[in-house]
Structures are given as C-alpha cells and as structure tokens.
C-alpha cells in the first residue's frame, strides 16, 4: 500500500485558468440518481459485510427495494417538472431485473453511468483480472440495454482497488465520480495516459450520506443544499463550478423528504446562468475545452516539466 495513489496532483483552487461553461453559465448543475439493486443473499465478501445481520436482513433489503417500487417515479416526476435529465449511477443488473425503469429513463434521454453490477458486490479482494471482468460486464450490459456505453464510473458501494480508475479508463470510460477532492473537473492520472477526468459528485450533498450517516433533518438538508449552491454560484462568476446532487430513491423520495428536494430544485433552477446538464456532458465539455490547459497549469504549479 502507498501513501498516495497519485491519481491527482496538488492543484490550488486559486488562480486556475478560467472555466467558461456554455452560454456563460456559472454553475454546471447535475443530479445523479443512484438506481441500485441490492441482493437479498449475496456472497459474503471477506472485507465488507453486505448486511449487518444474518440474511434475510428484511428492513435493509426492503427499504432499498422501496426505492425502485415506489421512489423512482416520484423523483422522475420532479426531474421532469424542472427539466432535469438524470445522470444515473446504475447497478448494471437492474437492466435485467427492472427493465421498465431503464426504458423510462431512455425515453427521457437520461445518462447511464456504471455503478458496478450490484451494490452488494464489492471490489475488495478481486484480482485485477476479476475487477476488469466485473467492469467490462457492467460496461457491456449498459451498452446492450441503453445503446450507449457508459462514460462514467462510480465504483459499486464506493469500493475501490488501487487500479479501479485505470481499469475503467482502459475499457473506454472518460470520467469518474469516485473522487471528492475538488469543486471543478480535474484531470486524473491513469496508466493508459488517456484524457480521463474527475467530475465533482458530492459526498456532502449525497442524500444517503446526509440522512443515514450524518442523520440530518429533511428540511435542514434542503437548506444546506441551497447554501452549497449559493456559494458555488457566487464563485462561478469567476470560473465555472460544478454542483451535483447524488440521490437514492429510497431516501429522497420518501413522503417526509421529497419536499426538501423539490424546494431545492425549484430554487436552483430559478437562477439564470445555471447549466443544467449531465455528468457525461460536463466531462466531454471539459476535456474538449480545458483538459490540455489544465494539464499545463498543473505542471507549472507543481514545478514539473510539462
């Protein structure tokens, strides 16, 4: 194990080359619904228990199923209302289990990025070949069911190996949501040398982190999302920023919580100069317009030869 995987270089937030989003927008705003499948009886990974009790863990399994049975339609309806195309973090096996959901998202031209096969199958302990097989399986499953290969990756249940991003870049991916080091896209160092970037996907704004880990109250979650936006919008006047709200239908779409989400979408989309977009579009736009200049600036500031 190493002190640092060297996935990204130190690159100070001040004095970076200015990012200009399309139409002069200050903030690139995207919503990333995680549409996941958790197995009721997964194999027991030696490094991480899928469920805290013996199977069947009824409440844990069933609330996640609630997300697909009940919650999905509620969130999709809100995103329709505010003209937001979701960027789905997809458990690829959901294409097999619940193709109806995939169809509805395809009809709306939503993006699908890879979130592994199941959220109960972790990267931990897999050999590099096994991890490649899993990544390729998800990649081709999504391509087959949606007509397009995924551009982005969020490792299943945020479980990684030292090679996760290298492997995803090697199968043709262009962005990752696994890094939380910045509020702007940044180049990521991958071993094949491809133009591969991190698109900010906020852990802090993630509903499951807010509700399950930090245990915050629904209306307070709405408040901090709006405050997060306010600051990124202010700073975006100088150089474009990215705001992401990662969601889960078993959290955000519960009857006592959906109001906080709706009020936040109403607030954010009520601003001019917001680019309502998807993860893929942010990655592509950044790579096309800013990747090379960012690399040069990083080299300059790290005192290395470019």
């Amino acid at each position: 194990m190493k002190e640092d995987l060297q996935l990204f270089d130190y690159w100070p937030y001040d004095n970076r080359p200015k990012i200009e989003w399309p139409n002069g927008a200050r903030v690139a705003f995207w919503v990333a619904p995680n549409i996941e499948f958790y197995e009721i009886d997964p194999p027991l990974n030696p490094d991480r228990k899928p469920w805290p009790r013996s199977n069947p863990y009824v409440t844990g399994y069933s609330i996640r199923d609630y997300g697909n049975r009940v919650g999905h339609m509620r969130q999709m309806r809100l995103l329709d209302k505010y003209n937001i195309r979701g960027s789905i973090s997809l458990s690829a096996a959901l294409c097999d289990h619940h193709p109806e959901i995939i169809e509805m998202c395809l009809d709306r031209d939503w993006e699908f990025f890879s979130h592994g096969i199941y959220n109960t199958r972790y990267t931990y302990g897999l050999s590099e070949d096994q991890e490649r097989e899993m990544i390729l399986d998800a990649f081709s499953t999504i391509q087959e069911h949606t007509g397009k290969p995924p551009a982005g990756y969020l490792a299943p249940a945020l479980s990684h190996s030292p090679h996760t991003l290298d492997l995803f870049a090697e199968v043709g991916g262009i962005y990752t949501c696994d890094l939380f080091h910045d509020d702007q896209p940044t180049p990521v160092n991958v071993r094949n040398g491809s133009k591969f970037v991190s698109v900010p996907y906020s852990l802090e704004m993630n509903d499951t982190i807010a509700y399950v880990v930090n245990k915050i109250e629904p209306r307070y979650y709405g408040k901090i999302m709006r405050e997060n936006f306010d600051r990124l919008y202010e700073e975006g006047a100088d150089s474009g920023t990215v705001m992401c709200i990662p969601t889960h239908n078993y959290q955000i779409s519960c009857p006592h919580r959906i109001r906080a989400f709706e009020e936040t979408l109403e607030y954010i989309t009520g601003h001019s100069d917001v680019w309502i977009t998807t993860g893929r579009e942010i990655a592509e736009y950044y790579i096309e317009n800013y990747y090379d200049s960012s690399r040069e600036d990083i080299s300059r500031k790290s005192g290395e030869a470019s």
Partner: protein
Amino acid sequence: MSLDKTFLEYPRRKYGMDHDRYDWSMLTDRPKVIWPEDKKLALWVNVCLQFFPINQKGKPFVPTGGMTMPYPDLRHYSLREYGNRVGIYRFLKAFDEYSIKPTFALNTRVAERYPYLMDVLKEREDEILCHGLHMDALHYGGQDIDEERKQIDYSLSKLRELSGQDVTGWISPDRSESDNTPDLLAEHGVQYFCDWVNDDMPYQFKTNNGEIVAMPLSQELEDSFILLNNKHTEDSYVEQICDACDFLIDEADEQGGRILSLNIHPWMLGQPHRIGKLESVLEYVTSKSEVWSASAADILKEYKRNGSS
C-alpha cells in the same frame, strides 16, 4: 489475491426480484385503491407495546431499544416499562381526544404480564396484533425452524386466548425474520404482517402455505427511528409527519388511496415532553377532511374489497 469465482456469478440476475416471495411491481402500475367515503389517506396509528427482559440474551443481536449496560441494566429496563405503565395511558387519552382508531401490536409477554392493561384494551375493542413473544425473542436467519415454530405458535395462541380476538396480524420483534418466518406465520393463521418496508401500499406475499399480505408500516416515519436512531428533534418529528401527510394526500389525488402509517412506542412518545408532539401530529392529520382513521384490519379489508388481491 483474488476471490472465489462465485463472486462474479449471479444466479438470480434475471427479470423481477432475486427471490420468490413477491412479484416485482411498481406502485404506479397498480389499480387505484378507493377508501371508504372516497377518503384519500388512511391513517394507521400502530402502537407497539413491548417487553424488554432485563436478562437479555441478545441472540443473535441486541434489539433496537434493548439493554446495553451490564446486568442488571435498570435504566433501559425501567425506561421501557415506563411506556407500559405511564406512556400508554397518555396515548389512549390523546387517541380519544382526536377520535383515532388505533391498532395495538403486543408482545405476548405484555398481555401475560399486565392483565389490567389487557382489560383496558379489550374494553376498547381496538384491533390487537401480535408483535412476537418479547423483544429478546428474535426471529433470525439460520434459526432452527422447530424452535421458531414453537415461538410463533405460543405467541399467537396465547395472545388469542388473552385478547379474545382472532389476531391475524403480525410484526416480528425488531422486524427481524428468518427465511421461514412468512411460511410459519401463514401456517398459524396470520393474514398480514408488517416487517417489510418496500412499499407504501399493501401487496401479496407468497408463502408455502398460501399468500399473505405485506402491510406497509413505515420504519422511516417511526417515532424511535426519527428520535432515537436519527436523533432529530421532537419538532422535526412533527414536521416530517405533517410533510408526509401533505405529500401523500396530494399523491392520492392522482394515484388513488394512500396510507399514512405511524408506528409509535409509548416509551418514546409517551414522555411528558413528547406527548404534546404526538397530539400536534394527530391534530394536524385529523384536521384534514381527506383522512380516514382506520385499524390495520380495516385497511386490509378495504384493500381486498378493491379487488387488489
């Protein structure tokens, strides 16, 4: 380093669920349910009356609200008993004030231990359902089936005897089940159970003794989940329930009847500083003309009358 090849094999990766207990079905794809008098929202107030033995075995885990200190954990034991002797009587008063039709989920041990309380409940004629034997008599994956069968048989038959009711509903202690629990419940005459939290409406659940109904008793809206697990304030509890009520009434306008299920514990909301919050919730919800206060069995009956089974 590598894992066994079974980690990359997915035997249940196919259409529908990864088990055979119920069919995959999105809520919006089902026929609309119409409640009596065309009400939009059924209010199901479910009161858990629980006994936590002080000599807790904690096998295979300590239940939510259970003992956490070395024996004898008088603080938790007595705080839970507070609910059965003080909190519940505050609840009953509040229910009557707001004309609520509650449902009582009893650990059978509560019925055995407190005949006075049983008489009060019997006189009210509210529905009683079985919440297992007691909070330390858990059902769990890997449990011996004969042991579990005995546990269920005793819990149900004793509660039926003491309540004088048929007792056709069930909630497992801490909603924990083994693979066999639904089969054993059906074998013992249970018609509906409330452990699964994957829906906002009832649905059919398969057992090897015929179908039973899974009733949607929200865990996310439970008093102990919001206050004890999430550590939210009492005021936020009220806000969350009222927001859920408003949202579900709006949804019901378009999609057919919905259910607001409030699973509450007298050891939690029965405290002097919290009972007023329960009253605020009941006042708000019952002020809505769209709300129908009903027992679990009433809701189940209407769901079945709608041809949804």
